[in-house]
């Protein structure tokens, strides 16, 4: 699944120190559940993103465990504190060992 995986992340460009902001994330991934069968009746092996984490300047915001019941192209929306200027790091962990990361800076102003 390493090819064609594309994260989208929405973070405001700036905030006031101490603000709570809403973050939205979406990543393209088929999230093969392991429950489906191919045309020959063989089970299609599970292949999903199993974990998603968000950190800000090294401190954790949210850590999500994903199961096969999460829809194709996983979407998350959540809130984060912004104590100072810095950088968000978004990390998606694939069953196949691939790790996808995206970073977004936020300014105080």
């Amino acid at each position: 699944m390493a090819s064609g995986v594309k994260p989208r992340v929405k973070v405001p460009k700036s905030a006031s120190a101490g603000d709570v902001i809403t973050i939205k994330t979406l990543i393209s991934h088929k999230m093969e559940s392991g429950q489906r069968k191919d045309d020959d009746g063989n089970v299609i092996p599970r292949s999903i993103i199993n974990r998603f984490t968000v950190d800000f300047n090294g401190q954790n915001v949210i850590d999500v465990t994903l199961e096969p019941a999460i829809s194709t192209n996983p979407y998350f929306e959540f809130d984060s504190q912004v104590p100072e200027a810095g950088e968000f790091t978004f990390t998606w962990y694939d069953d196949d060992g691939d790790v996808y990361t995206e970073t977004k800076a936020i300014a105080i102003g």
Partner: protein
Amino acid sequence: MKRASSLAFGLACLASAVHAQDTESKLVINDDIDITTVAEAPAHAENLSEIYSGWAFRSPETMALQMDDFDNPGMIFVDQALDAYNTVEGSAGKSCQSCHGDDAEGLVGARAVYPKWNANAGEVWTMEMAINGCRTERMGAEPWGYTSGNMVNMTALISSVSRGMPVNVSFEGPEHDTWLQGKELYYTRTGQLELSCANCHEDNYDMMIRADHLSQGQINGFPTYRLKNAKLNAVHSRFKGCIRDTRAETYSPGSPEFVALELYVASRGNGLSVEGPSVRN
């Protein structure tokens, strides 16, 4: 006998109108782009008084997915298309960007007028045919499959930059014969169920077909991200699905029949906004 069986089918499928299409809610994308989802029917859609985007027939949760580009999963594929748009391919050493500018700015408005008569080719071209025309004639690249991932993604990008503009497809010029052919197809019953496009989408829109709220079959929102298969769907794929569901052998995506049908169906939506990539069930 024919009449009796189609009546029974009608009763089974269209038992009740549970809820009317939503003509009150307004679709504004990103708090910025106003989308016309209800309009007066154009004169050539002679059996309709008002036209409605498919958006108005969906549940509040599905409608909400289209109001913000970060909620709309179809926009992932617009991003992917933008990468392809900026990639140089083919013997001419060009990308889409080389001619059409950054972020498809040179293509603003194109979606609203396609399918469109192409004088050089002497036929009506869909957006897909125009894209492949660019690829083979100007870029010297291989054409894309008509409903391939690359192709449907690119049509989503080109549509996205025209969102909010009124669909305004021409049908009275040199393309008129093709339009008439499309109109004939629209009203032709096909398959073991003997259903035409009009039987569902003109005669019975707003009724329930099993648990699904039948729309007018407008195509201003294509390509559309379907919750069902979690990907972008091209309009010819939708035509194929509908005709297959009448239990008929279908035409192929990209066939002259589907090009004609697309021109006719698009023209029935003149006045609605370009909406793609939309989100549907």
